[in-house]
């Protein structure tokens, strides 16, 4: 696993965070773990980038943040999606699928 690239594709981290949080509020580690699990280990999120992105998204008004107790009674900062965040997710998701389709078409033409 050392040799395979597990970096999140540039520019998609925000969308992945928004998508992850659209299901339920989570703290930073929870988000990282969820992305890793759902992507079946293809993406590993760099914690520094994740926390930076969370601050940026919170400031943009797409996330709300709140300190709460976790199930194992630690204090953690939980993030949840705002209405503006949901809209933003739709925009980014649509944009992403448009791009993916285009890339797929190009690859097919090549191959």
């Amino acid at each position, binding site marked *: 696993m050392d040799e395979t690239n597990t970096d999140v594709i540039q520019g998609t981290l925000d969308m992945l965070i928004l998508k992850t949080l659209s299901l339920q509020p989570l*703290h*930073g*580690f929870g988000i990282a773990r969820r992305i890793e699990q759902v992507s079946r280990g293809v993406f590993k999120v760099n914690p*520094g980038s994740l*926390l930076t992105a969370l*601050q*940026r998204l*919170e400031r943009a008004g797409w996330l709300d943040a709140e300190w709460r107790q976790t199930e194992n009674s*630690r204090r*953690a900062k939980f993030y949840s999606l705002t209405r503006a965040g949901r809209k933003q997710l739709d925009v980014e998701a649509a944009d992403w699928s448009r791009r993916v389709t285009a890339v797929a078409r190009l690859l097919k033409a090549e191959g």
Partner: protein
Amino acid sequence: MRLPGWRRIARGVGALLHPRATAREIDEEAQHYLDEATSANIAQGLTPKDAVRAARIELGSIANVRESVRSSGWENGVETLLADLRYAVRSLRGAPGFTSIALLTLALGVGATTAIFSVVRPVLIDPLPYPAAHRIVTIAEMQADGSRNSGTFGMYRELAQRSRSLDAIAVMRSWQPTMTGPDQPERLEGQRVSADYFRVLGVAPRLGRNFEPADDRAGGPSVVIISDELWHRRLGGNPSVIGTEVALDGRPRTIIGVMPPEFENVLAPSAGVWTPLQYDMSENRAWGHHLRTVGRLRPAITVEQATLELRQLGGKVLDELRPETYAATLELTAIPLGEDLTRGVRPALLAILGGVGLVLLIACVNVTNLLLARGEQRSGEFALRAALGAGRDRLVRQLLTESLLLALVGGALGMLAATWAVRGLVALAPPELPRHDAIGVDSGAFAFGLAVTTLVGLAFGVLPAVQAARGAPRRALQRGSRRVAGARGRTRGTLIVVEVALALVLLLGSGLLLRSLQRLFAMPIGFEPSELLTMQVQTSGSRFGEDSVADRFFERALAAIQEVPGVTSAALTSQLPLSGDLDEYGVRLQASRDGHSTFRYAVSAGYLETMRIPVRRGRSLEPRDAAGASPVALINASFARRLFRGADPIGKRVEIGPPDPAYTIVGVVGDVTQASLALGQSDAVYTSLAQWPFADNAMSVVVRGSGEVAALAPAVRAAIWSVDKDQPVVRVAMMEDLLDATAADRRFALLLFEAFALGALALAAAGIYGVVSGGVVERTREIGVRSALGASRRSIVALVLRHGMGLAGLGIVIGLAGSAVATHAIASMLFSVSRLDAATYVTVTLLLASVAALACGVPAWRATRVDPASTLRAE
């Protein structure tokens, strides 16, 4: 919905205000991540120790995470700026010599520029303080020789009836009534104006009413409008003042209006009271040139259109009415009022502004040079920072922060100096400077100073910053890199050439003006000022309604003064030299109609003798030149030259003001300085007081005595009051004190130009010294090698001098060429000095060259001290 971006700003500000709390929160979040990761690792079966290690590896250091999160917000830019500023302050503090010289240089440049800008702005740039001020024009009567006549009531009346391009037109003359009443009598400044005066300016009284045509007719009602200042100072500021009476010149006059406090009367700035002119055409001065004419153009009429119409109308009036006081060649012209007011001072102000701009430019070049030299010394520091990972843009940014900080602090000091200097400038400004009261360092001037400062900071910061950034990585910490200093030396050399050239232009301009002033001030004042007592007597009261009464009062007062024991001679004059009096009349050869503006003195017999003004030709005024005798006049030598060009003026006849009477010239007398700073000689005409047709309501007394003449003042005053105890006696002064005050004016003017010149010289010297001594330091190794190889001290001195003087010489050549062009700008301000005056050019060139030699000499001497052994060992 929340405003977008609002949260971003709030969070950023929060982070700036509470940096610790923000950091703690990030740390806690990162710590929680670490804890969860550790737990997860343990759950996967790692030992607690390995679990922590793995989590640490995944997260990296908490400090790194904190930095990464924090640097993503906009507030990070602010923090970097603050850090840059802190570093800049520390670095500038660490070099107190450099910092103080740079700050002083900048303060000088910015301060001088801001101060002069504050003076120039209200005078030359701002519109006049009236609605649609661009529509207000002066209506000028231009003679064929380009000189200007005052206007006449007759022409005003005709224009008012015929013109279609003017909304309103008005004439005015000055008026100095004495106000009597419960308080002390006071002589006021005022104006007699035709009915539409305030309509031309576009300002109406704040209380009461404006003048109406019914007020302005001969024998009309006795009414006045007063200024807000007079209203508060003398009349208690009570609105019920409208309709009450004040006694002016002993006559009751009804107050019908009070002007608003912000009303600025540019045509007579100190006027506090206005009364209708009340002329009609039966008046014998109806066609006398003694009024000032202004008008307000109709909207959408241009000054050119108005001039065209006025010229036609003027020609028609002259054709139809043939007034005796007009030459047929006279042409009327409309001149924008603002332009007309500043006509006299515009070239001087622009020249000073140009000079100050040069000072600023030289200051900038100097500071750039200082920064470049400092950049040299700091190359090690830059290399170290680059090696530690500072990016090139980071270094440039740091250096620009430093130079901007330098500029802002220097600029702030400069603006402080400017506030102080402007106060001095205004206090000492010549009285003919218009809009005097509007001058001050205000927000506009500060904005200007700030803009200049910022531009200056960027201008002199960019070059050194770019050079440092270019040099830093390449030169990474190697000591022997002195060899590559050549390119940098060239930049600085170029700057020195520019600086010397600019300094030369400035020095030459100041030099030429200084020489003019010296020539002007070296002119004899034309009379004997020592032991001469002067004072002014004013007449007021209805008893003086008739001219003959005033004449009789002055006659009897003079007789009483001459009776005072100790008085050897005494005389009266309508205006006193050096006192600020400026009374000019249009004087023409009889029947010629070509008037010349001339100082007019109505004097008693014995005035010339008391003043000791020499009679050059013919005779002086004598008691026989009395009221009934044939009118006679004296002219001064300068007027004789202008009017007669060598021909004998004795026996010729001139008209002074109105065409009747004509005066026979009986003598030519020496020139006298009337106004202290006037450029050029002024023409003068003297008439006998008894023969002058109009009474002056104020006369100056001049007294000489045996022994201490100052001690006679109380007795002289008592003698005047023995004739009439109600007349104000003012301005009691010894002529020598008036002369001293004049000298102070002149000293200020000289000082201003000397300061310019010295400033330029000092800045140029500092610049040359900086570059040449920097060059010596850079070439220490070369010089060491040369002297080790047997070069003599003399050849080393020559080497250094050649470097510095070569640059200075090139600068001087360019500066001389530039001056030959630039001095065109001040040609009109020079007095009996050519703008290419060889003596000035030679003196200034030699001065600058020797200062440059001195500035090179010190580093050259230091170069001979270079010890070859130690330099070579240092390699």
